[in-house]
Structure formats: structure tokens, C-alpha cells
């Protein structure tokens, strides 16, 4: 399969993540959408590293994908901690109901 096949799969994944991101109410579901979008970006990087590698090194795209995975892990940890502490104080985590600052 060529580059366009991988890019198309990645575009579909990104769109799914975007749809989740804008249509879900639950904060954790929104986080799942963000994870899907990050994965689509990482898949793009790896596909480009395979089919159009940079001059300096074949593996630059894969290094970027490693960094994306690590950033996604850090982001998931902090976002879940926020969700848990919001749930502890407000007893729900619907994104449309979290309307008060300093609650």
C-alpha cells in the first residue's frame, strides 16, 4: 500500500476523533477523541518517514511519533486527574454542565 492509503486511514481516524470531540458530552469521551486525533497524527508521521524520508535520517518521523505518544500519555494523566477532582467536587463531568469557575 502506498502513502495515500495510510494518509486516508489517518484522515478517517482524525475525523472520527474530531466528531467525538465536538459531539460528546462526557469529558472522558472527549479525551478519547483527542487520543484518536493524536494517533492519526502519529500515523501520518510514521507513514511519511517510510515513504518520503528526510535527508538527514530515515527515522525522524518515528522519533516524532515517540514524542507524540509520550505527550499523549502525560496529557491523559493530567486530564484524568482534572476529571476526577471535578467529579469529586461537582459530582458530574458533563462538559456542558461545567459552567462555573471556582466551583
Amino acid at each position: 500500500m502506498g502513502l495515500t492509503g495510510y494518509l486516508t486511514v489517518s484522515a478517517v481516524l482524525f475525523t472520527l476523533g474530531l466528531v467525538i470531540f465536538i459531539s460528546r458530552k462526557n469529558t472522558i469521551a472527549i479525551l478519547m477523541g483527542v487520543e484518536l486525533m493524536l494517533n492519526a497524527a502519529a500515523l501520518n508521521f510514521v507513514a511519511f518517514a517510510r515513504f518520503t524520508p528526510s535527508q538527514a535520517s530515515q527515522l525522524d518521523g518515528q522519533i516524532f511519533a515517540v514524542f507524540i505518544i509520550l505527550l499523549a500519555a502525560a496529557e491523559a494523566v493530567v486530564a484524568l486527574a482534572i476529571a476526577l477532582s471535578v467529579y469529586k467536587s461537582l459530582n458530574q463531568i458533563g462538559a456542558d454542565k461545567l459552567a462555573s469557575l471556582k466551583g
Partner: protein
Amino acid sequence: MMGIPELFFYFFTIMVIGIGLIVAFSRNLLRSAFALFFVLFGIAGFYVLLGGDFLAVVQIMVYAGGVNVLLIFGTMLTSDISSPKTSNLSFQGALTFIAGVSFLILLVLIINTTNWPIQVPGEMAATTKDIGRLLLKEYVLPFEIISFLLLAAIVSSLVLVKKGD
């Protein structure tokens, strides 16, 4: 006529997109979380097809083993799983559908009309050694920054969760 890699490509494509649709449109949040697990496995399969052996293992270990378990854990702790119909898909379904489909059409058009400078892919080789060398030589500054970021994430999540007590 199809070789084994093409067969696996189509298998992973169907797996990722089909199960991704479950993630996006399932009413039950817990079902979405478990479906996300299989999507992440499918992406690890794509990494293997693209010659990223180290990356595929990292994907399975960090995403499927860590992040997704964390998401399932958060789902079980915070949402009302026994009555999943109350709070899931939002009411703007039609608008979201239109936005998503038009965005997807735009992306696919761009992908198919751009003239990518494709080179013929070389032989696949083991990448772990080269990635380690790159991380400790050319990319040592981002590597250190990201390790500091991970430390900050650990400390900040502990502080955030502990503050309620």
C-alpha cells in the same frame, strides 16, 4: 494477486475504521473505551507494516496498556454506567455529521491531489538501536524536556487529586 502486506493493510484498515466508528457512536461509554483498545492495537499493526517495530511495541505498552486502562478506570469511576443512555451523544448529531463528512472529503481531496515526493521504500531493518542513538544525540534536548514534562505531569496529577481531601 495481493501480497501478505496488502492483506494485512486492508485487515487493519477495516479493524481501525470499523471499531473507530463504534468508539465514536456507541451510546455506552464503557463500550467506547474498550473499542478504543482495539483501535490502538490496529494502529500498532500499521506501525509494524511501516517498519516501526520499536514504535509498535511502545504503542501497545503505553497506549493500550497505560492510557486506555486509565481511560477505562476514569470511565468506571466517574460516569453512571448502569444507565448509559442519560449522558452520551449530544443533540447536535446532524450538524456534527455534516461537519465531519465535509472535513473528511476535504482531507481526502487534498491527499489525492497533492503530488507527494515518494521515494521507493528501502528494506525494513530493526529500528531500536537507531532510535536510541537519535534520542541521545540529535534529539537529546527534546528528550530531556519531555522527561521533565512527564515528571511535571506526575506531580501535578497527584496535587490535583489530593487537593479535594
